């Protein structure tokens, strides 16, 4: 199944036992995250004003969130002025109904999709299928997941857990492709041929959006493969589902996103393609555009000023690639389309901290701080993790653990000492808060890295 929603069915410490057993997945993941980490650092080092960019972006997002109602109304007006329609969805169910109704209004039984975490969050594909509408994923990785019946395991490289031999097998079996080798170029060609027919016949596309600008009503999709351009250009109807937190106040704010996102996510100076559109352009592209603004828990996240900055996230996935817990556990252990450090803070806040499975997620961290260092919008994930652990309601016995975590966090060196200590086989549990000690019991201690990421980090500078 692809597009698995945000509701974990197990507590993290239980789910992780299963994923830790999958050695192939762990090997693929380790290779991938190591490669991206190295490249990302180079891409960042090339930009002299990188730290200022992060500060500016954090301020921009905070400003946007502080004025969210007014900016959304402005965005709505601009989109309508340009010939688009705006819908509002309180929750996933409402958003799904809106998309299905648009497709049904045209009697369509098939839509093409551009990868979008938001449509995965609302579990759109399964719902459309239940209404007799096939949603065809068009990103290579999403296609792989869809054909394999997998859930994506990484924000950016959803099939990061599959290697080329597995993909060759899959394409042979499901696409009937004649693939003598597992050369990635040939695999991509098989996908290209398969999807091109689909694009040319598509009448409606469903996309997410990386951001939208209130000042101009312009919406953007940032991508690599060109399937986004196909979906945004060829069909006559376009429906875009966007979380309300993604609105930017000003057109000039686009600079921040296009300088921070590609370097943080794919470690490129710029991604191959970015498309901007504003409502409808007569004679070019879809002649009907629907923008669906989704709340689905975001107003709940906004309500707590101490953790609200979670909403700054631009889904770059840099925090996943530096996270020692993510690298070992894999994306699936988080039970949500939002995995890794950002998932550990976003999923429980979206669902509410009383959620019995999701509230285990803030435990899925060693609080090493690497995520904060790379985050392009400076979300203080370690601090928020600690706050959320407290909110999840720790038993008296565990609050001593929380104090220990705060003590360790206050000094990275102290924390590294704790990690090194653990690596010698003494176990980390006594030093760490309750949920984490539970997590540690779910895995083998010998899997501690030879060197911690923070240590690596310092060495590589």
């Amino acid at each position, binding site marked *: 199944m692809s597009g698995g929603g945000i509701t974990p069915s197990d507590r993290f410490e239980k789910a992780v036992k299963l994923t830790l057993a999958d050695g192939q997945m762990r090997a*693929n993941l380790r290779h*991938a995250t190591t*490669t*991206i980490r190295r490249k990302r650092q180079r891409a960042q080092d090339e930009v*002299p*004003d990188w730290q*200022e960019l992060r500060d500016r972006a954090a301020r*921009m997002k905070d*400003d946007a969130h*502080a*004025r*969210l*109602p007014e900016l*959304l*109304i402005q965005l709505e007006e601009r989109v309508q002025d*340009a010939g688009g329609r705006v819908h*509002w969805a*309180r929750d996933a169910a409402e958003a799904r109904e809106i998309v299905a109704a648009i497709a049904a209004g045209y009697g369509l039984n098939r839509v093409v999709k551009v990868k979008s975490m938001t449509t995965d969050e609302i579990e759109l594909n399964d719902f459309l299928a239940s209404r007799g509408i096939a949603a065809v994923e*068009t*990103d*290579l*990785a999403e296609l792989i997941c869809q054909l394999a019946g997998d859930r994506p395991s990484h924000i950016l*490289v*959803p*099939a990061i857990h599959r*290697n080329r031999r597995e*993909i060759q097998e899959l394409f042979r079996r499901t696409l009937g492709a004649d693939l003598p080798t597992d050369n*990635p170029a040939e*695999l*991509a060609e098989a996908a*290209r041929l398969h*999807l091109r027919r689909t*694009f*040319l*016949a598509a009448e409606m596309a469903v996309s997410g959006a990386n951001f939208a600008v209130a000042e101009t009503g312009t919406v953007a999709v940032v991508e*690599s*493969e*060109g399937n986004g*351009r*196909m979906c945004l*250009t060829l069909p006559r109807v376009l429906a875009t589902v966007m979380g309300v937190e993604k609105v930017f106040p000003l*057109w*000039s*704010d686009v*600079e921040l996103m*296009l300088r921070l996102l590609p370097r943080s996510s*794919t470690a490129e*100076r*710029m991604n*191959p*393609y970015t498309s*901007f*559109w504003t409502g409808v*352009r007569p004679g*070019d*592209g879809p002649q009907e555009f629907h923008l669906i*603004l989704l709340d689905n828990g975001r*107003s709940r996240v*906004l*309500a707590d000023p101490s953790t609200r900055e979670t909403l700054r996230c631009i889904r770059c996935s840099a925090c996943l690639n530096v996270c020692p817990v993510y690298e070992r556990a894999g994306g699936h252990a988080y039970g949500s389309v939002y995995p890794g450090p950002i998932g550990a803070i976003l999923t429980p806040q979206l669902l509410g901290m009383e959620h019995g499975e999701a509230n285990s997620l803030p435990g899925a961290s060693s609080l090493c701080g690497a995520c904060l260092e790379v985050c392009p919008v400076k979300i203080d994930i370690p601090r928020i993790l600690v706050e959320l652990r407290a909110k999840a309601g720790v038993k008296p016995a565990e609050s001593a653990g929380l104090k220990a975590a705060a003590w360790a966090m206050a000094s990275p060196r102290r924390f590294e000492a704790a990690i090194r200590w653990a690596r010698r086989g003494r176990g980390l549990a006594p030093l760490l808060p309750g949920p984490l000690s539970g997590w540690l019991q779910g895995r083998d201690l010998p899997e501690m890295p030879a060197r911690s990421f923070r240590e690596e980090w310092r060495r590589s500078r």
Partner: protein
Amino acid sequence: MEAESVNPSRDAILARLREALEGSSPRPRQDEPGAWPTPDPVAEFAEKAAEYRARVWRGCQADAPARLAEVIGAGRAAVAPGLDTHLIPPGAEVRSRIRPVEAETYAAAVTGCRLAIAETGTIVLDHGPDQGTRSLTLLPDHHICLVRTDQIVAGVAEAVAALKGAGLQTWISGPSATSDIELIRVEGVHGPRRLDILILEPDA
């Protein structure tokens, strides 16, 4: 505005957001765009575009038609209507769009651009007359883009400032690519698999 709203979801979301923000006040923000320091934007653009495996050629306007004919080769080419007529090679067809049924008809599309960016090696289309509608530069497998040196800006910030008000934009950095299979960059998934950039110096 809200009095006439008949949309309960809209009202509910706005009310929830306002409630969530109660007690916090917006902090006014002053933002200065970031400059990209470069001694030679044209050279930097050429170098970075080439690093993304676009094929880059630099020459004077007078030599452009010959070079164009060379990169087009034997295939059928569609040329955006707004291009300077002296640049249009003999045999090329003037088209502003390509329909899905014609997807395999044209081997190449020739267009201008709105601007290009040294910081990232990016070309930006705003789909004006010399660039055609979006389908023109999407369906043919080969995109040939003419960039005048005076269209090249240093940084992304300058580009964004210049593009304010352009409702439709396509930013292109190298040919279509994916890294979805073991993170190996593979050119050419759905967009044009070949990108030629011709940088035109002003005639001396």
